[in-house]
């Protein structure tokens, strides 16, 4: 097979049932391509962290398999784990260590020889350089998050997991983080992130996967997803209010606002013909006039909410 097109991560029939009997992952199948940014969206408790934890070796799968660059995560754990960097969801850091030593520790733990120049670059990129000798305990939450990112990048991973990286994070860290993500992507690093913030996925992901109740509901390129499932609305502010939608217009999926002053037309962005022109012609024929016209497009958020509601 051609190495370029082989996925970097292959998940097959993956199941996880926790000791208490709760099934957190249900038959997950997913291929992730080298160098892409994939966002896993899903409500709390959907199984995102569990999925990441299985791939990283923190949680044992109940059945199924995961391969990283063709290596099995159980049989060849040394190979797969040394390729992976993980920024966990929780702020779990040492307390009494200095920033520098905890980051250097991570690099060693992942089997890499010391490279102070690399650690220096990582710390500078994350605006941690001034804090390098500070005890982690003395840092703010945002700074601790940066330390966790630095630890994950210390051993130059080719696959990076960011588990809800921006939850409770300030604007400057978000900016720094997306700069780093861009830079890593340019260097060919594959990035898998989970998030609640759909704007985030909209902003940076190439593909989006939606998880709910332990199931991967869909995986789609972001742009395709939005055109396939996205909806547009045209709102017309009428010059004279209506009491009901005229029968001449009943072929269109129209809605009349409560006060009768607005007509709302909803259509799918995926179709070739939107029907807007025909609607406007028919409005004229029906002698309905409008003062103003607004269009809105559904965001990934609306799509996501619809999907999750449908699946549960």
């Amino acid at each position, binding site marked *: 097979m051609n190495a370029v097109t082989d996925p970097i991560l292959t998940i097959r029939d993956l199941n996880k049932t926790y000791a208490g009997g709760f099934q957190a992952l249900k038959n997950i199948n997913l291929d992730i391509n080298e160098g892409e940014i994939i966002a896993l969206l899903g409500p709390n408790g959907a199984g995102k962290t569990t999925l990441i934890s299985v791939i990283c*070796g923190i949680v*044992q799968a109940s059945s199924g398999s995961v391969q990283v660059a063709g290596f099995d995560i159980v049989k060849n754990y040394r190979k797969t784990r040394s390729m992976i960097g993980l920024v966990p969801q929780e702020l779990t850091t040492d307390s009494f260590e200095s920033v520098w030593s905890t980051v250097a520790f991570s690099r060693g733990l992942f089997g890499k020889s010391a490279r102070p120049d690399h650690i220096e670059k990582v710390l500078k990129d994350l605006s941690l350089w001034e804090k390098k000798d500070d005890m982690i305990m003395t840092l703010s939450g945002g700074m601790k998050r940066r330390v966790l990112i630095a630890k994950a990048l210390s051993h130059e991973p080719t696959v990076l997991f960011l588990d809800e990286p921006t939850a409770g994070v300030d604007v400057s860290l978000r900016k720094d983080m997306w700069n780093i993500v861009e830079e890593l992507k340019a260097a060919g690093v594959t990035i898998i992130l989970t998030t609640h913030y759909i704007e985030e996925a909209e902003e940076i992901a190439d593909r989006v996967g939606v998880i709910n109740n332990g199931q991967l509901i869909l995986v789609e390129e972001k742009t395709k997803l939005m055109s396939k499932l996205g909806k547009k609305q045209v709102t017309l502010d009428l010059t004279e209010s209506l009491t009901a939608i005229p029968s001449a217009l009943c072929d269109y999926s129209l809605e009349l606002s409560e006060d009768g002053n607005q007509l709302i037309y909803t259509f799918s962005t995926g179709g070739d013909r939107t029907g807007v022109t025909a609607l406007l012609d028919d409005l004229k024929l029906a002698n309905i006039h409008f003062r103003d016209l607004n269009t809105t497009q559904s965001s990934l958020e609306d799509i996501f909410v619809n999907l999750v509601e449908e699946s549960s």
Partner: protein
Amino acid sequence: MNVYAILAIYKFEMARTRRTLVQSIVAPVISTSLYFIVFGAAIGSRITEVEGVSYGAFIVPGLIMLNLLMHSISNASFAIYFPKFVGTVYEVLSAPVSTVEVVAGYVGAAATKSIILGMIILLTATFFIDIQIEHPIIMLLFVVLTSITFSLLGFILGIWADNFEKLSVVPSLIVTPLVFLGGSFYSTEMLPPFWQSVSLLNPVLYLVSGLRWSFYEIAEVNIIVSLASITAFMLLCFSLVVYMFTTGYKLRS
């Protein structure tokens, strides 16, 4: 072999010791000195000799054993319990390290601390009494084997414990009594025959006896038996750690 990982864990643990130097070194030295003042000087002046050795000198191997056991267990158990407790253990679990490497790092560091501590206690003792060591190599071997074995035991305890209570219960409720009843501060020959036989069921007796033999060539059980039992116990603990880590017991849900 991920040597960088072993070194990283080892250095991390040794740095932790340096931060808690008072607790790790100074406290045991003070308590040892107190033992000598109370047992050696006050009581020892009434008990002249035990099996041909002055009482103060007689208790030195027992004191060293007591410290090795307590500190090996508490150091190693805390080393793994704490990361588990605060969550930082995720990093070790997701790292490309084998069980043997993780154990080498954590247990190696805990054992190193215990060995250093044992030597410091020996040194402290020389300020109070004259000590001759008949078999220094065997003495060192015993100290090293005991430190490694009980650090392994501590590691097992740290993985198993899911609260601080469990963590402290083993050293204080099991190890301390075993050490005190294991002939650390008396010869079992001073006991009635029945209790002499019961004492032979105490594993710590074999350790104290072996270490004392390396000092003064006096022993309750044959030195070979002592060496064999500590080695067997070490292998048992090691197998248990490997089993726990490989199956993910209490570490990987």
